[in-house]
């Protein structure tokens, strides 16, 4: 199984729960967003209860998207600009 490093970014309330804005994670490259989120949420208590969108390389994607070509994943709570 091939591994890769992916830059993982946390924003808003999520950054408070993880207590960081970003980290590098070593993950299996042949998995989906959903599978990766499952493993991330095991590291951070309370994360699974929040609603958020996912961006891979700065594009919003669905949870069944493979992470294979992504170098960056961002966990984005509801936007509140303006």
């Amino acid at each position: 199984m091939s591994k890769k490093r992916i830059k993982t970014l946390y924003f808003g309330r999520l950054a408070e729960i993880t207590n960081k804005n970003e980290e590098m994670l070593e993950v299996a490259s042949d998995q989906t967003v959903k599978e990766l989120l499952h493993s991330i949420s095991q590291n951070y208590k309370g994360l699974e209860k929040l609603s958020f969108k996912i961006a891979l390389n700065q594009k919003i994607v669905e949870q069944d998207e493979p992470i294979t070509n992504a170098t960056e994943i961002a966990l984005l709570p509801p936007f509140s600009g303006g």
Partner: protein
Amino acid sequence: MSKRKNVFIDGPITPEFISDSIAKHQTKTSIGAHNIFLGQVRDDKIEDKSVQAIEYSAYKEMAEESFHTIREETFTKYDLTCMHIYHSLGKVKKGEICLFVFVSAPHRKVTFEALEYIVERIKKDVPIYGKEIFEDASHQWKVNT
């Protein structure tokens, strides 16, 4: 693709910045109508606490891309002469300006429509976060309605 515009401003958007921006358009004499939206930090009361400031953060690279897309799509949809969008990052106190959208066209009608369209798109599509800070230094994350 046109060039990326700088949108983010550190701290509040000052009335001087806004008036300078208006002054710069006085040489563009094909314009007959300007329309401006200003977002101001509201002293919201939540239970017995009140908002003193909002601290803005953003997924900057993606937000800049989103602003660019909004800009391009607005120009395609509406016949505008020019468009400027500025949004604060960092702390903005109650009563201060955090969002400045400025559209100009030969005639007024399109400026009303475009302005509303842009503001709604910003609220919905741009990864910006507002942390509402209360007088006792506690906070909550702003939610757009």
